[in-house]
Structures are given as structure tokens and as C-alpha cells.
């Protein structure tokens, strides 16, 4: 290192700063290495290609395909539902309401508040609603709960991309005789496609990783659900349940499941990067 501290105090703090930064990197490395170290040996083709066979939870054959597919269904469904709500909302704020500055700031404030609400609260709320209406745990209930959880995240992420669109583009589009909806879905949507797709994938990653909100709403089962009314297994809960087993083989499978989950999350975040570069094509750099 080349720096020469002007005094002892600065030098001392710069060493501390350096170590703080290192600690963060080390923490990430430790998380990834410990999971890979314990999980990779237990990972096998059977693990990810089969549903649990009889006695799976006592260490016998089978895999976690039910949880993998269940998680993809759940996160996919929730992301789809959240996009149906979030995209129009984000566009509405930035196209229709763009000049109502105070209103928009108020909406952003509420979204930020919602973003901070813990997922267990959504889970408990979802369960309360379900029991009130007599709905049983199911893929659909899980999808709705998770969608509510990720909508604020998605809208704020989309909002970040949309709010830098210059006002002139809105005026230009309106001057051509576009309606507001056309301006939103044809012009703003295309201009922000990179940011919007990143927002969707980010939300998908959040949806597939969350456990507390689906604990009481999506249930758990050994089968791959064939309809929205059936309960579904999910990866985070599969990890959680297997890890609380006293049987070592089952615990090892939890580590292997963790590897699968981390892998999916990484793929999603890499995909997010690729997508955001790919859709850059038509974007105008103002």
C-alpha cells in the first residue's frame, strides 16, 4: 500500500477501515465456501431429479425435485402476479402522476415503508386472511402472499429506472398524439426495458429465497403440485425442515439443498445482468 498517513489517528482508522472492508469480503467467502464444502459432497443427480421416496426424511432415497419445482412455480407465479400489479403502478407514477411531485413522493414513502415490513408479518397476515375465508394452504395462497411481499420491492426498483426518463420524452410522445397509456407502455416501457427486467428478476430472487412468508401459506408436500389449490414444497422450507432433523444424512441433504438454492439465486442475478445489457439496444442515452 502506498498511502502515507498524515497522522497516527488517520493511520489507525485507515487500518480499521481496511479491515472492515476485508471482513465483509471474508464473510461472503465464508458463507459460500462453508455451504459448498458441506453441500457439494451430498449433492447428487438423484437429489435434484427425484421427489422424496418413502422414508426420505429418515435418510432413504429420493430427492428434492418437489421443492425445486415448487419454488420455481411459487416464485414464478408470485413474480408474474407482482408484475401485473407493479408494472402498471410504476408506470402510472412516472407517466400519469409525474407532475404531481408531492403525491408521487408520498407514494414512494409508503412503498419504502412497505418494503421494510418483515416477511413474517406478511405470512401471518396471509394466514389470517386464509383462515377467515376458509382457504387451505396452497400454491395459490403462497403466490398471493409472496406477491404482496415483493410488489413494493419491484415497484421501487422499476421506479428508479423510470424516474430518470427526461420530461421531454413524455412531451414528445404526447405531442405525437399518443394517449397516456401508449406513452407508458410503448415509449417509457421500451426506454426502461433494461431496468424493468432487472427489477423483475431481482423480485424473483427475493421471492424464491423467502421462507417466513410461505411457512403458513404454501404448506409443504412431497409431491409436485399439479394445480394452484394444492400445497407445495419450497426450497427454503426444505432446507429449514431437513436441517432440524436429528439424522445426519437428512442434514447433509439440507446443505445440498442450500447449494441448489444459492445456485438458482446466482443464476438469476447473472441473468439479470445479461438481460439488462441485452435490452439496452433501443434505449436512448439522454
Amino acid at each position, binding site marked *: 500500500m502506498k*498511502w502515507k498517513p*498524515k497522522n497516527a489517528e*488517520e493511520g489507525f*482508522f*485507515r487500518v*480499521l*477501515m481496511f479491515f*472492515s*472492508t476485508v*471482513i*465483509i*469480503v471474508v464473510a*461472503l467467502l465464508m*458463507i459460500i465456501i462453508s*455451504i459448498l464444502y*458441506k453441500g457439494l459432497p451430498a449433492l447428487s443427480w438423484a437429489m435434484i431429479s427425484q421427489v422424496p421416496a418413502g422414508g426420505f426424511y429418515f435418510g432413504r432415497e429420493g430427492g428434492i425435485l418437489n421443492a425445486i419445482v415448487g419454488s420455481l412455480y411459487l416464485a414464478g407465479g408470485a413474480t408474474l402476479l407482482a408484475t401485473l*400489479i*407493479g408494472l*402498471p*403502478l410504476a408506470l*402510472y407514477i412516472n407517466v*400519469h402522476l409525474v407532475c404531481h411531485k408531492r403525491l408521487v*413522493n408520498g*407514494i414512494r414513502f*409508503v412503498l419504502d*415503508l412497505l418494503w*421494510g*415490513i*418483515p*416477511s*413474517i*408479518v406478511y*405470512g*401471518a*397476515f396471509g*394466514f*389470517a386472511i386464509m383462515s377467515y375465508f376458509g382457504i387451505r394452504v396452497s400454491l395459490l395462497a403462497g403466490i398471493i402472499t409472496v406477491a404482496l411481499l415483493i*410488489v413494493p420491492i419491484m*415497484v421501487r426498483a422499476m421506479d428508479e429506472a423510470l424516474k430518470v426518463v427526461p420530461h421531454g420524452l413524455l412531451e414528445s410522445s404526447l405531442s405525437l398524439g399518443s*394517449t*397516456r*397509456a401508449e406513452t*407508458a407502455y410503448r415509449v417509457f416501457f421500451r426506454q426502461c426495458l433494461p431496468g424493468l427486467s432487472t427489477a423483475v428478476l431481482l423480485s424473483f430472487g*427475493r421471492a424464491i*429465497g*423467502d*421462507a*417466513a412468508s410461505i*411457512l*403458513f401459506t404454501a404448506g409443504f408436500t412431497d409431491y409436485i403440485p399439479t394445480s394452484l389449490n394444492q400445497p407445495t414444497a419450497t426450497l*427454503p422450507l426444505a*432446507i*429449514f425442515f431437513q436441517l432440524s432433523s436429528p439424522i445426519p444424512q437428512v442434514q447433509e441433504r439440507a*446443505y445440498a439443498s*442450500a447449494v441448489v*438454492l*444459492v445456485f438458482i*439465486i*446466482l443464476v438469476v*442475478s447473472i441473468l439479470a445482468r445479461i438481460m439488462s445489457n441485452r435490452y439496452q439496444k433501443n434505449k436512448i442515452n439522454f
Partner: protein
Amino acid sequence: MVNKTLQRVRRIRPGRLLQDTLHGLWMRLTLALVMLLPVLLFAGMYYKSSMLLQTNSLLELIFSGEWKPMSGKFGFYPFIISSLWVTVVALLLAAPICLLTTIHLTQYARRWVLRVMHPVIDILAGIPSVIYGVFGILVVVPAIADYIGPVFGKQISGYSILAGAVVLAIMIIPFILNILIEIFKNIPDELAEASLALGATKWQTIKLVLIKKALPGIIAAFGLGMSRAFGETIAVLMVVGNVTRVPTGIFQPGYPLPALIANNYGEMLSIPLYDSALMLAALILFVVVLLFNFASRLIIIQSEKRVA
């Protein structure tokens, strides 16, 4: 020609008009839904927990240490204290690291450090909480049982407040860091330049000008981090021990509110008041987190206004 245009109201093609109207309607509906969500959450949980509140006063429930669901005694004190312990300890661990790293990254770090740290922070922020839980069980708990505990002369399992706090600290670091970096970047360069021009050293400028300027934002970022920690469920639940007792030290097991809800909800519906009590726990969590978020966000908005 003039007369003709005056006679008839002209409209764009009906199809386009309908499309615009329908889109506008749906957009407004989504806005209404999302804006009402906090109210719905509150109302739903209040409705469910009102049964317990009818027979017990809120203060009584919060300050009573007796948790015996079978005999209808619901004292939240141990859980609330556990929550406070893990949250505060997590913040104490995370805060200095976050602040130091932020100053490092925004004031001193070379380009390549930033290029490494950006994805590191992003990945940390994207890791699901259950993975943090697994990491806690694999690394943090054994480390506390085998190394840290013995240093303090304790024979412990490792499942403790400290384990929960360490895991939480790592989880909230990327969250706080992102806010802090944003805040430090928003401080106009002129401020630092003015200080340097007066003959202050870089370190004096950071210490006396930048940190002072960013202070409200720093406090708010820590507030947001704390509320995030307060509501985190699965990761804490996996390493904190879950023993219903008021903890008195960081090496003891605890049982925070979210863990209480997660562990028991959906199972104990045969006891109607139990259901109500757990919903009250969720409501307390909701209200506390909301208030913390509200105050912190307000501070951030205020300080942004002052900069602008």
C-alpha cells in the same frame, strides 16, 4: 369548415380510447391496492388479535413474563427482550463495520476495490435468509461454542443471542451499506473542497465535515438496519436457541418475536387465544418496524432536502 368542427365532438378511435381508459383504471386500482396494503395489514392483524386484547391489557401482555398458552397466560416480555437483545447486539456489530467501510469506499478506495465490493455487496444482499441460517449453524454456532465461549469461560452449545446477532449483523450490513454509500455520495463535493481549501487535512475533513453532514442519514440508516434486524425470522430462528426465558447475556439462548410466530403459528389453532396472541406478536412487530421505518425515512428525506 369552422361550423362543422364545432358541431361534432371529435374523439380518437374508440379502440384506443377504451384501451387508454382501461389501462388508466387498472393502474389506479393497483395504486389503491398497494396504498391500502398497510391499512389492510393493520386491520387484519388487529381484528385477529382483538380477542386477546379484550381480556388482557396491552401493557400487561407486554410486561408479563409468563408464557403458558395452555392455561391462557400470554406474557410477551421474554420475547420482546430477546428481540431487543439480538437487534441491538447485531447493530453494535454491524454499525462500525458499515461506517468504516463506507468511508473507505467513498473517500479512499481505488477503483478496483469498488469494482470488487459492488458485486460483493449485491450478492450478500441477495442471499436468502435461510442460507444465512445454514451458515450460522455451520460456522457461527460452532465458533461460539468452541472458541468464543471458552475464552469467556463458558460451556455453551453456541445457540445463543450472540449467534443470532452475528448472523443478523452480516445480513444487515449490505442493507445499511447501500444506504450509507448513497448518503455519502449525495454530499456535494464543494463541501469537502471548501474544507480542504481552508487548510484542513483529508482526515479532518472527513471527521469534522462529512460525518457531521451525514449524521442524520447515518442515524437513519442504522434505524432502518435495526428494523430490518428486528423483523428477520428464519435465520435468527435457526441459531438463537428458542428458549422461553428472559435472557441476561449474549451467551444465553433467546426467543425473539418473529421466531415465536414462525415456530408456533398454524399448529396451535385449537387454542383460540393462542392464535390471537401470535397475531398480536405479529402486530407488535409490524407497528414497531413501521414506526422505526417511518422515523428513519423522514430523517433521510429531511436531510436530502437540506442538501438540495
